[in-house]
Every structure is written in structure tokens, then in C-alpha cells.
């Protein structure tokens, strides 16, 4: 008998617009010790299936059918009976580690209550088991961490605490709902390794809910593909990836860019003359530390001396993990944040020296597309009004109907039907809103577009479409792009050259192919090796480069010298950039052995 037997599981929500069936009767089994992947795009109902089993549906949600765990139907079991199984035999971890832990209870208290409730353990014994598990999920300095509050831990560490909490009673099923989606790619790699190890050592079955085919390829034995609340395909990982039966599955796999694709889509070398020259730009923010009675102000060096150039029609990818300063750098280039030092020279004019009026004239050619499509549009304007706003500023002479014609033409160009012109952002999907954002940026045919994580919030299939659109627009209008992303596979798809940032400084800067084929800096190598590849065969046989320690905060002294431990005695020393090969710059670093040995 399988560990889990779910039959005809349905989830219905009562909404203002009548009942909505989020899950339309799914059936599946999970065998003891296996990892089942439940894959689908947002809104496919993949999370709600498991939420129903855990009794976590929203108040307006109702579940029917059955979810038998070890013979007992969790849906019909009385609450106190189900409460003995939930958290002990079946446990769950969630997507957003920043909000999933209770803010006013220490790590130790939150771990301890699981042991107290399910095993009746308290005091020294509970503490011993908690510490033991914190060690096992590789939290360094567990004895100190156990007394800390969640806000004192990093995102990756909080997810480790969540996993430790879920594992305390040695569950037989661990449900992981997008466990690594909110994490940086190197942290994701470590969390996935940890889960795989637990599955192996403890024999815990895992139900992994994710949208990321790469994660599935790395982790799962069997896969269920879900769409619109129903399962469309089921099979072993090898089968699904090698020979998907359904078009939808095929599309999901193909839409995901592969970092190991032999030769990315051809990027015509349409590189004209240099239009943008960024020299030694620094952006420092004064941060008030709460120390002593009056606090203390220190400078957070978000961007600390970055230089690069950009040619007409070229796409420069800027990659790095959270907090590396990539978004700040983009805003400094556009003068949305005034740089603390350095020069941004646009077509020969230094933008940092311009007054407001002169800068405004330049803005016509300098546009930006943001990460969150909904947040970047004024909720009280129709999309036509949003798209037309830059026209009002830069072509005030246009009549109303001329402006309207231009807006409609641009809407058509980015693939939005004209019938949508009077709609509001909240009525559109994320992908459509991002097209609106792109249309607004393109309406004056600028010479430079900055894409700040422009596809990160979108589902993979939509992401692929938006990337295609950007490439088409670039071919048609010839604008240059600064493409900022944390996703190395996506950046590879679209960029000519790539800049790798680490804590506000450049660690490597080269042509796309050079960066991916022969990365020189250990940080670049670690980043690339952490990206999961949507192919189980390749993914599971890869050797991964793991760097010791966590990504430090830019305020930590010596953080910049993580890859240069030999100079650590020399406080304030910053690694220098040198040209290793023509056009290939790399920051000073020690050998890999030295770094791994620290």
C-alpha cells in the first residue's frame, strides 16, 4: 500500500463571483521514501491540493474526496486526531521563509513546541533534539541561533529552521511548497541538497510543489504535471523529461532556458558604437544602526566602484544575488538614484552633471521596465493612459487622437489587443501587465532600455514569450539593453556580454560565451554550477562547486575579501579587476583550494 492515496480530491472556493473549483478531482499516490514532484504554473491549484490535506485551506475553501495517509483519511478525521498526524507524520514547509516563522517567538521556542505537542518532550531533552536538528540542517553556531528571533536570521537560514522544524518528529511525508523559490540560486542549491540528503537518510517521502522544471529534474522520482486544477500527465522523471506525451508538458520543459544549451539562440553581433560609458560609479546609502542611545550612521556601499560600457544595439546582462547592488546600479545609470561618485556618460554627455531640465530631455532615450508588472503601473490609470504618459511629456504637441493612435500601434506591437486599452492593471494578467510596461518604455523609441528583473515574476512560458518580444523589439528598433536578473540561464538567453556583481563590485565581465564556458572567478563558477538544469540525467550527474559560508552582508567587515583570504590582514583592501584575456575582466582572487580551505 502506498503511503498516501488521494482519490478524487476537489477544492472549491466560495467567492463573490460564485464558487470556483481550484482543484477538479485529482488522484495520486505517494510511495514511502519517494519524491513526487507536482509541477504547474501559478494558479494551477498545485498548492491547494496539499493545503487541503494539511487542513490549511482559507475559510471560504472546502475540500471533498479523500486523502488517505497510512490508511487514515486526513480530510474527514476529527481535528484533534488530524492534529496528531499533522506536524509529526506529515509536515510541511512553505515558500516564503521571511514570513513563515512567528516573529515574536525564538527559534528554540518554535522548535520546542512541536516536540512538546507531539512527543511530550520539554526542557533539556527538547533542547538537545532541537540543537541536534539545527546541526543536521547545517546551521552553524546552533547554540546561539536557537535563542534568536527569526528576523535575526537570513532567508536561507530561516528556511533551514523551517526544515528542521518539519523534521523534528521524523515525518514520513514532507510537503515542500515552492521551498526555494524565494531564495538565491546558491542557497537554493544547498537547500535542495539538504532535502535530498534527508530523503535518503531518514526515508522521508517528499511531495515537492514547484514551477521550476530544473528543481524537479534534480529532486523528483515521479512527476505529476498540473494545469487548471487537473493532472494532465504523470510519469517518472526520466519519462517525462525524455518523452512527454502532452504538449503542455513539452512547452513547460522547452520554455525553461537551459544554462548548458550548446549554443544559445544566435545573437547577431549588431554592436555599433559605444553609447554608454559608466566609470567607477558608487552609490552609498547612509544606514542608521541602532547602537547606543543615539544610534550610529554608517555607509552601506550598495554599489562600490563599477565600470562598464555599452554599445548601440547591445544587451549587457548584469547578474548577482540579492543585495549585490544590481538594481541600484541600474537606477544610478538612469539617475533615478543620484550616484555618490563616478561618471555616467551617455552619448558623450555626463548625466551626473546635468540639471533637472537637461536630464529630463535625456530621459526620452533612457527607459526602464520593472520587476513587478502590477506595482509598476498606476492602479488608477487605464493601460492606455499609462502607455501614453511618456508621450505627454516628450511629445506634448500631439493631439489626443494622434496620441491614441500611437498608443494603439504600440499595444499591437507588444501583442496587446486594442480592446484592452480601457482596462485597468488589476484586470490583466502578470504577463499582459509586463507587456504594458514594455510598451510604455518603448513608446518614444528610446536608445536604451533597462530591464530590472523584468521577467522574474512571470511563469516560465510567459517569461519565454516576453524574452522573445524583447529580442524582436531590439531587432526592430535597435535599442541597447541593460538586462538585470538573478537568473543566470535567462541572462544567458538574451545577453551579448555579462557582468557579474558581488556586494556592489564587479567580479567578472566578459562575452556571454566566455563567461559560461570558461568562468575564471570562483564566485561565477559557483553561481553557474548552482543553476539547476531541466534534464534529470545531466542534472544528477553534475558535480557542484560549493563555497563555504553564507553570502555576507555588505556591512560585514572584510566581506569583499571572501575570495581573497590571503589579503584579509589588510583591512579595507579591495580586489582589483584585471584583464585576463582580451575583453575578459576578472577580479583578483585566491585559488579555489585556498578559498575552500578557509
Amino acid at each position, binding site marked *: 500500500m502506498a503511503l498516501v492515496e488521494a482519490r478524487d480530491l476537489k477544492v472549491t472556493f466560495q467567492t463573490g463571483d460564485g464558487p470556483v473549483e481550484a482543484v477538479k478531482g485529482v488522484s495520486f499516490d505517494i510511495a514511502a521514501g519517494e519524491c513526487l514532484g507536482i509541477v504547474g504554473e501559478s494558479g494551477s491549484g498545485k498548492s491547494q491540493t496539499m493545503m487541503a490535506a*494539511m487542513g490549511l485551506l482559507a475559510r471560504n475553501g472546502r475540500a471533498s474526496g479523500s486523502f488517505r495517509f497510512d490508511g487514515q483519511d486526513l480530510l474527514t478525521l476529527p481535528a484533534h486526531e488530524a492534529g496528531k498526524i499533522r506536524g509529526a507524520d506529515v509536515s510541511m514547509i512553505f515558500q516564503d521563509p521571511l514570513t513563515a516563522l512567528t516573529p*515574536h517567538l525564538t527559534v528554540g521556542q518554535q522548535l520546542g513546541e512541536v516536540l512538546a505537542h507531539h512527543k511530550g518532550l520539554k526542557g533539556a531533552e527538547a533542547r538537545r533534539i532541537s540543537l541536534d536538528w539545527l546541526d543536521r540542517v547545517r546551521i552553524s553556531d546552533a547554540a546561539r541561533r536557537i535563542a534568536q*528571533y527569526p528576523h535575526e536570521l537570513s532567508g536561507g537560514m530561516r528556511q533551514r529552521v523551517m526544515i528542521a522544524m518539519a523534521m523534528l518528529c521524523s515525518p514520513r511525508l514532507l510537503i515542500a511548497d515552492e521551498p526555494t523559490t524565494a531564495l538565491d540560486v546558491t542557497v537554493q542549491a544547498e537547500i535542495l541538497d539538504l532535502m535530498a540528503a534527508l530523503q535518503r537518510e531518514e526515508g522521508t517521502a517528499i511531495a515537492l510543489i514547484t514551477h521550476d522544471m530544473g528543481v524537479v529534474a534534480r529532486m523528483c522520482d515521479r512527476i505529476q504535471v498540473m494545469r487548471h486544477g487537473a493532472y494532465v500527465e504523470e510519469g517518472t522523471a526520466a519519462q517525462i523529461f525524455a518523452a512527454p506525451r502532452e504538449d503542455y508538458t513539452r512547452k513547460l520543459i522547452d520554455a525553461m532556458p537551459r544554462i548548458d544549451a550548446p549554443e544559445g539562440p544566435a545573437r547577431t553581433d549588431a554592436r555599433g558604437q559605444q553609447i554608454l560609458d559608466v566609470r567607477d560609479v558608487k552609490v552609498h546609502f547612509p544606514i542608521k544602526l541602532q547602537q547606543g542611545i543615539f544610534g550610529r550612521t554608517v555607509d552601506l556601499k550598495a554599489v562600490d566602484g563599477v565600470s562598464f560600457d555599452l554599445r548601440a544595439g547591445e544587451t549587457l546582462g548584469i547578474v548577482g544575488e540579492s543585495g549585490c547592488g544590481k538594481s541600484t546600479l541600474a537606477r544610478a545609470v538612469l539617475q533615478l538614484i543620484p550616484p555618490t561618485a563616478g561618471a555616467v556618460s551617455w552619448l558623450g554627455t555626463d548625466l551626473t552633471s546635468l540639471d533637472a531640465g537637461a536630464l529630463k530631455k535625456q530621459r526620452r532615450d533612457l527607459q526602464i521596465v520593472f520587476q513587478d508588472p502590477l506595482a509598476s503601473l498606476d492602479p488608477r490609470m487605464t493601460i492606455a493612459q499609462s502607455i501614453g504618459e511618456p508621450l505627454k511629456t516628450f511629445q506634448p504637441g500631439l493631439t489626443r487622437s494622434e496620441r491614441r493612435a500611437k498608443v494603439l500601434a504600440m499595444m499591437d506591437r507588444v501583442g496587446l489587443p486594442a480592446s484592452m486599452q480601457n482596462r485597468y492593471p488589476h484586470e490583466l494578467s502578470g504577463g499582459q501587465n509586463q507587456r504594458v510596461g514594455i510598451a510604455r518604455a518603448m513608446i518614444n523609441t528610446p536608445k536604451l532600455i533597462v530591464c530590472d528583473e523584468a521577467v522574474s515574476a512571470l511563469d516560465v512560458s510567459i517569461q519565454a514569450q516576453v524574452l522573445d518580444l524583447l529580442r524582436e523589439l531590439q531587432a526592430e528598433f535597435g535599442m541597447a539593453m541593460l538586462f538585470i536578473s538573478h537568473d543566470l540561464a535567462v541572462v544567458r538567453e538574451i545577453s551579448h556580454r555579462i557582468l557579474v556583481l558581488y556586494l556592489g563590485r564587479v567580479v567578472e565581465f566578459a562575452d556571454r560565451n566566455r563567461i559560461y564556458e570558461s568562468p575564471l572567478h570562483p564566485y561565477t563558477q559557483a553561481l553557474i554550477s548552482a543553476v539547476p538544469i531541466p534534464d534529470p540525467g545531466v542534472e544528477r550527474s553534475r558535480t557542484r562547486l560549493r563555497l563555504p559560508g553564507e553570502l555576507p552582508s555588505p556591512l560585514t567587515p572584510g566581506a569583499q575579501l571572501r575570495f581573497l583570504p590571503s589579503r584579509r590582514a589588510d583591512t579595507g583592501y579591495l580586489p582589483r579587476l584585471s584583464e585576463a584575456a582580451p575583453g575578459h575582466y576578472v577580479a583578483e582572487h585566491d585559488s579555489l583550494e585556498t578559498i575552500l580551505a578557509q
Partner: protein
Amino acid sequence: MLNYILRRLLIAIPTLLVLIVVCFLLMHAAPGSPFTSERALPPQVLANIEARYGLDKPLVFQMWDYLVNVVTRFDFGPSFVYRDRTVNGIISQGFPVTLTYGTLSFIVAVIVGVSLGVAAALRQNTWLDYLAVGTSFSAQALPNFVMAPILVIIFTWKLGWLPGGGWNGGAWPYLVMPVIALSTSFMASIARITRSSMLEVLNANFIRTARAKGLPARTVVWRHAMKPTMMPVVSYLGPAFVGMITGSVVIDMYFSTGGIGLFYVNSALNRDYSVMLGLTILYGALTIVFNLITDIAYAWLDPKIRY
């Protein structure tokens, strides 16, 4: 934590000084002196009286003297109207009374209000919830100067259970009606704030985590949801405190409890500036101290504020 308290204190002290100065200037900006409004006095007599109260000196000196007296000796000077009384005397007579029923009302409002709010949130969209919301709206709308006579009619006249007024050293039968009349509307506000705050917290991700651990509903609510729920409630306690001070005026008028509220109204009607000034500063100081306490309570609820 200690640093945090010290920092709040450092903000509170200048606030208090500014308050004293502003009140003083406001009071002296009023047209005429307290003695001009009475029947016309001979100029010589008026000058003598003004000299006696120090009103003949330049305003800045008057203010400085006042400030020094208040800060160093906690001395608010003599009353302008009751020639034989000092402001300090009035405060020491009336304040303990106000403090007693005020504190009690405050405790009752918080305990009953929070319990009602939590109950309504946990039974959202049931009759209990609707009843709680409905009554709390009505209670908020019912002014305490209506509440007080209604209570007297019911408990004193019809039922004869409670004395209709007086203080009697704060014996409990004399406390019941003042406390009910003063606390009801704040109880209602607290209940409504608690309810909506609890509903929001119950939707938070960490509550989902706590439920996923299999903890019983009781533990989830008390251990995980209660502290964050209380955060907006604690923020409201400052304004509630100010409201109760205002409300004490009504209590003192209806129940003849002898608290400082009545003195305040009388001083306002008699243009007894020194009493008004002294009591306003006392109330302001109490508010500032109370806000300090709520700030500290807030820090206790939210570990992110403790450094």
C-alpha cells in the same frame, strides 16, 4: 532594550518642556487677565493683585519663573480664583480619585474589549460576531453623559442597588457606575480594533505554519496570534487614555466623585488660568508618560524593536 527606553525618555523630556511653554503662552495670549472679567476693580487694587501673582513682570520672566517652579519644585502656583487654595492642593485632593476610577476603567476596557474582539474574530460571520460589532458601534456612539444618567435611573432609582453618586473613599459600590460609564465606549473601540487585527493576523503566513505543525487551535491563537494582534491595540491605548481623561469630566459632574475633572471645568468657566494651566500640563505630562509606557509595551510585543 535599556537603550531604547533611554532614547524614548530623551524624546519625552523636550516634548514636555515644549508642552509647558506652549500652554503657558496660549493661556497668556488670551485677552484680559482673570481679574478684568469680574466687576471693575480700582486700577491700584488691580495692580496690587497682579503684582502679587507676578503678572506685572514681562511675559518671558513670568514664564521662566513658572517653568522653574514646575520643574524644580513641582509647584504650579496659587489659584487665581480661590484665593486660599493652590493648584497643588487641588491636584493632591482630586487626582487620587481620578486615578483610582480611571485605572479601573482602563483595565476593564482593555480586558473586556480584547476578549470580546478575539471572540468575534474567532467566530467571524456568526451571530456572536454581528452582535459584537453591532453593540460596539452603538456603545461608541452613546456619549457617556447619556450613559451616566441612564445608569443612575436603572441602578439607583429602579433597582436601588447602587448609590447615585459620591465617593466614600472609593468603596466599590461607589465605583461601579463611574467605571461602566467611563469604560464602555473605549471597550467598544478596543473590541473592534482587536477583531480586525486578529482577523488580519490569522491570515498571516506564520499562522499557517503553526497550524501545519498540528498545534491545537487554542495554542495557535494564544501563543502565535495574540502578541501581533495586540500591536494596533497598544497603539490605540494612547488616544484611549487621552479620551478617558476627557471623559472623567463627565464622571465627576454626574457622580460627584470629586476628581480633578470637575475642577478643570470650573476653572475653565471661572477663567482660573493657573488651575487650567496646571491641570492641562498635568494631563499632558500623564499622556507623555503613558505614551512612553505604550512604546515600551510595543517593544515587548515586537522583538524587531528591541535592540
